[in-house]
């Protein structure tokens, strides 16, 4: 455990294990297959009534598979779905590298076990006495799922839970990266999680940010986002330490950028200044030029405002050369989990040398020239990737992920 700040700077940071649960599948292998096949995993919402919403669809993780092969845990039936998602993702990561013992954890979320809060409020509204109320209250807080997961695997490290809206997952990875890079810690667990909840679903619907149609990021006919859910966990370790113990290196995190765009609580600055600042900082931190980037996994929510601002920022900084896709087109926007899940997509792209697709795409906005990975994945040499996440509150985060040579 590292307590005091260290003078060691700019250490290299490896990803030594990863685990993922999303509508695209359970685990890295299924997920890679879904990305390759450009599977559309957005389906009609089944968790709550959407009869009075404009949007009727979301990317959903099937409940019946969530608790398969899970380690035994007392009172596990009381845990929220979000806890089960994190447990499943963490289990996959720890199975890959059983010697990884984290000093610390930095995780992102936006609403954690919100649906338990909803159940509780409905009981209050009905003046009902419900036996489950204390369990709902104890398991509703957003930090609870990661505490549950750490507890289950006997990890006693401290944990910071970042709730920077939709940028949370990338913020968590970025902060974890900086903690290892600066020598504060040697090994950090990071990632993000979020489970679909009625309150959040209706919230985006009320803003007319979500769409009754297909999710079409960067398409001229785009009409909005669809929500998703899931969890992604990455194990970060100082590179030399990982190499010394013979750990398998999945990728290297090279850079991180964060910016705050004070334009509006829910809308990005149309000039793309916040997004651009985050990407520029990430490249600066990685000591790389824009030309070094082979693929951008965009935030790409498919809302008119986000995609216009992000497209402008990307084309201003990178021109129209770099392939870009938003994988949210396939599984929806998993909010606090998105940055973590998409970072894992990037790692899979680096490992298997392909570009994940942006499905439901026709043509870009009139004045925008982006090189979209349209509708199908394809094989390509990929060494360096930028992954973006932007959120309410004007929070913007970008990370640079690179393939390890050899």
């Amino acid at each position, binding site marked *: *455990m590292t*307590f*005091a*700040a260290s003078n060691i700077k700019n250490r290299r940071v490896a990803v030594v294990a990863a685990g993922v649960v999303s509508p695209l599948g359970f685990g890295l292998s299924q997920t890679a297959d879904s990305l390759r096949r450009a599977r559309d995993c957005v389906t009609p919402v089944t968790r709550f*009534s959407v*009869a*009075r*919403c404009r949007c009727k669809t979301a990317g959903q993780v099937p409940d019946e598979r969530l608790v398969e092969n899970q380690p035994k845990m007392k009172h596990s039936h009381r845990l929220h779905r979000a806890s089960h998602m994190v447990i499943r993702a963490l289990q996959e990561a720890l199975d890959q590298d059983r010697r990884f013992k984290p*000093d*610390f954890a930095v995780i992102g*979320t*936006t609403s954690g076990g919100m649906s338990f809060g*909803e159940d509780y*409020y*409905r009981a*209050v*509204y009905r*003046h009902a006495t419900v036996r489950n109320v*204390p369990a709902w*209250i*104890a398991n509703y*807080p957003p*930090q*609870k799922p990661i*505490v549950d997961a750490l*507890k289950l695997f006997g990890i*006693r*490290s*401290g*944990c*910071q*839970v*970042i*709730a*920077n*809206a939709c940028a949370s997952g990338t*913020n968590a990875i970025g*902060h974890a990266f*900086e*903690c290892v890079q*600066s020598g*504060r810690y040697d090994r950090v667990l990071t990632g993000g999680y979020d489970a679909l909840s*009625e*309150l959040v679903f*209706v*919230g*985006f619907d*009320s*803003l007319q940010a979500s769409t009754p149609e297909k999710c079409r990021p960067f398409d001229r006919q785009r009409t909005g986002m669809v929500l998703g859910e899931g969890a992604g966990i990455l194990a970060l370790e100082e590179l030399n330490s990982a190499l010394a113990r013979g750990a398998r290196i999945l990728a290297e995190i090279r850079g991180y950028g*964060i*910016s*705050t765009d*004070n334009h509006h*609580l*829910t809308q990005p600055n149309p000039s793309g200044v916040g997004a651009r600042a985050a990407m520029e900082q990430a490249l600066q931190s990685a000591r790389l030029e824009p030309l070094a980037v082979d693929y951008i996994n965009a935030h790409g929510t498919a809302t008119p405002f986000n995609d216009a601002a992000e497209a402008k920022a990307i084309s201003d900084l990178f021109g129209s050369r770099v392939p870009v896709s938003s994988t949210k087109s396939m599984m929806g926007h998993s909010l606090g989990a998105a940055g973590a899940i998409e970072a894992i997509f990037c790692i899979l792209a680096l490992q298997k040398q392909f570009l994940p697709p942006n499905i439901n795409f026709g043509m870009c906005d009139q004045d925008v020239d982006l090189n979209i990975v349209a509708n199908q994945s394809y094989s390509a040499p990929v060494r360096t990737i930028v992954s973006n996440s932007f*959120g*309410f*509150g*004007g*929070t913007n985060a970008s990370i640079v992920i690179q393939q390890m040579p050899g």
Partner: protein
Amino acid sequence: MSLEIVGLGWVTPLGSGICEVWQRLLAGEEATAEPISDTTGQKPYPVFRIPHMALQDLPGHARLRRASAISRFAAAAGVSALHDAGLTNEEQLAKQIALVFAIANGGVIYTKRFYHDIVASGADAASPLLFPETVFNAAASHLAAILGITGVSYTLVGDGAVGLSAIRMAEDLLSKDELDYCLVVGAEEADWLLCDAYRKWRLLRSAPPIEPFHKPAKGTILSEGAGAVLLGRKGFVKIGTIHPGTYYSTRRELTEVLKGVLEELGPGGDPSAVISSANGTFIDSAEVSSISKVLPGATIYTPKPAFGEGVGAGGVWQVIVGAQALRSNKLPPLLHAPASLPFRIPTSSAIFSDVVILSCGLNQQVAALRMSALPAQTN
């Protein structure tokens, strides 16, 4: 790297203004609880609320027009901490300062209103004006906009220990040379729904006062407000070791977990004081047992009988109390404690060179830090 407190600000149920509230604490005052009701017509609960006068210096800003109470509390405390440090140049600040926001329940008033509309009238009745304010980082976003911060801004969520976790994050951030300051703000707003939840969780008392360290524990009273600590490299109180935090799985193991946390903080000055998070619940006895074993000579004080349980704000309030104790060599009297206690209680003659802040949340998280007076402040 030296991490020091540069400025302080708070909005508490006893008022705002560091010196004003500190004097009231030293005089043994406590906030007055008022009943909080709900539109569903169910039973009222007592809460320590923020007096209107406490927000009179809040700067006008377009972002605060529709913002929830939590954003107003945070803005008032944050701006006050910057003023305390003599920082006013917004443009310069934007590049030098990071914001770390600590929150537990967040914008619960608007969240409840938003969800109530869904339950009572259907999804198509939900207000698009309310939803953005329900997001956990809304209050941080408003404060960043008010202060012109365009760089690093993080909102951390957790239980009552989240305030210290935010200080730890500030230390992470200030280990980078690019930043000069980190403003840590902890905030909370009270609502009937929270009180009802805490009651059903068997942690709430039906009427004040909060009686810390009683056996059996009688329960706590919720409160609201914000605390802000501006951290930099040259200030008036030094933050020493900050424990990275941990959790307890069961209440039974809490004493051992706290003991481990205090031991890992390492040896400090003698005699030392502990600003405890005792709030009238099960955590009180665990805190006393662990402190008695690890820091047997320590004086223990908890501000919660005076302020109430401020959850997200509570840890930052504790840090401010600790800093004030080091600045003034005084601790306020311990309110409503039993006559006989197995530890030292604050007296007028004590001298503190070293203070430990111990935050034990009600939902399994634990954190602690040690701070000390800088030579200029030591008598």
